[in-house]
């Protein structure tokens, strides 16, 4: 008896539509009700670290979506031949390879981003969301479903960190995507808005993230058990 046979009872219809109700849930659930950051509280470290500005956050989001989708796909395709006893190592090897590829491509084509994100792109390897999805979903589901699940989790992660980054950059640096919002307002109305240095620090991310979680849980009525 090994752990790889966690096959859950999936209703197998002859030909399920590409975006059936069940499959849509793979994408929509992680966006809100089952968000990896706010509900599962995974991937917090990178959410705190890279969200000082929008631009690196966007690159980080794309990198995570790429890694989680493709690692889900690869692991799902291989799930029946992966020996159960070394499955975590195999998952890790796949994730590490994908992450290294992202890092190499960034270095070759987006060097400035590589300098800002280098350390964090490497840390996607330890991003709990990625390993979490592999272990919980890709090991037991078909390839296409796993890709959808990866997209869902990736976007669920992305929209949260982009929201955090938006507020941190706006309040902390007075800009959005390096466009000087505060500066423009000052030029137009002559009214200078002070920036808040706290937002540039990680503390700012904690605060914004906390508020997002608060609003979300109030709305969804989610209670920690």
């Amino acid at each position, binding site marked *: *008896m*090994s752990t*790889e*046979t966690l096959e859950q009872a999936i209703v197998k219809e002859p030909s399920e539509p590409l975006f059936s109700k069940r499959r849509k849930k793979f994408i929509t659930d992680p966006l809100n009700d089952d968000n990896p950051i706010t509900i599962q509280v995974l991937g917090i470290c990178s959410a705190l*670290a*890279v969200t*000082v500005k929008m631009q*690196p956050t966007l690159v980080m989001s794309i990198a995570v979506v790429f890694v989680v989708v493709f690692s889900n796909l690869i692991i799902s395709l291989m799930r029946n*031949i*992966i*020996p*159960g*006893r*070394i499955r975590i*190592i*195999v998952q890790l*090897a*796949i994730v590490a*390879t994908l992450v*290294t*590829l992202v890092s*190499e*491509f960034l*270095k*070759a*084509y987006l*060097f400035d981003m590589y*300098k*800002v994100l*280098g*350390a*964090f792109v490497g840390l996607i390897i330890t991003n709990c969301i990625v390993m979490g999805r592999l272990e919980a979903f890709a090991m037991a589901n078909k390839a296409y479903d796993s890709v959808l699940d990866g997209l869902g989790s990736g976007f669920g992660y992305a929209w949260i960190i982009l929201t955090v980054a938006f507020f941190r950059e706006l309040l902390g640096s007075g800009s959005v995507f390096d466009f000087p919002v505060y500066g423009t307002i000052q030029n137009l109305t002559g009214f200078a808005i002070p920036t808040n*240095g706290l937002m*540039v*620090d*990680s503390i700012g991310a904690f605060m914004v993230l906390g508020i997002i979680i608060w609003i979300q849980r109030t709305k969804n009525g989610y209670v920690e058990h």
Partner: protein
Amino acid sequence: MQRSNLYIIVFAAVLTIILGGLLSGTSVVLKPLQDKQVELDTKKKILGAVMDISNIKKPQEILDLYDQRVKSIVVDINGDLMEKDEKGNPLVAEKIDFQKNHKKDVQTRPYPVFMIMKEGSDEVDSYVLPMFGAGLWDWISGFVALDSDLNTVRGVAFDHKSETPGLGARITTPVVQQRYIGKKIFDEQGSLQSVSMVKGENGESLDSHHIDGMSGATLTGKGVNAMLKEYLTYYETFIEKTKEAGKKPEVEEVEEVVTEEQNI
């Protein structure tokens, strides 16, 4: 289903070979592009320590500007011109790997000096000195530009491998780097003082050898201070010699290179 040990070993071996091959293949293919990016980045930093190049977007324009304006030499710890490395190969300042160089003995290290020339003349506008040191998590490096008086800081361009984003990584931001501009490295008695960051960030105006620090990144600041002090000491003899020579119409070291290249 329990797999046999043999299966597991073969599986792991095959996986390793496939993934390893994929990674090394990518690395080989992308290496030339990455090297180009690193070269461009270095040249950007050398120029960026002196002038504002943020408006130049095309990489080729930066490389052209660099060729036009920058001359480089390599000196040893005694401030004398160094032309060949220990193996007898000619030394090119741009090719020196600062990280490897940093591991060599202080006495035998080559020290590159980049000279930004005044536009369309042979006069040195500023000297850019590369530096290397340890930050909080990994290496940090810097280019410090000195005015032609070799005392006033014209500008700095720092880089790092993995300082904390938002904290120590701020050494790469203009806000922090601008604090160095106009500071002096020698005091009135002519002894080397370097420029150091103080602890904390008060926004106060400090004397000509101290600048405001980075809040929450005291250790990175200390690393930067140590790097500046250390490397300015190494370059001190060169600076003294150049200053001496500078009292004559033209800087000697510069002329040697110029004559060599232009065959006057």
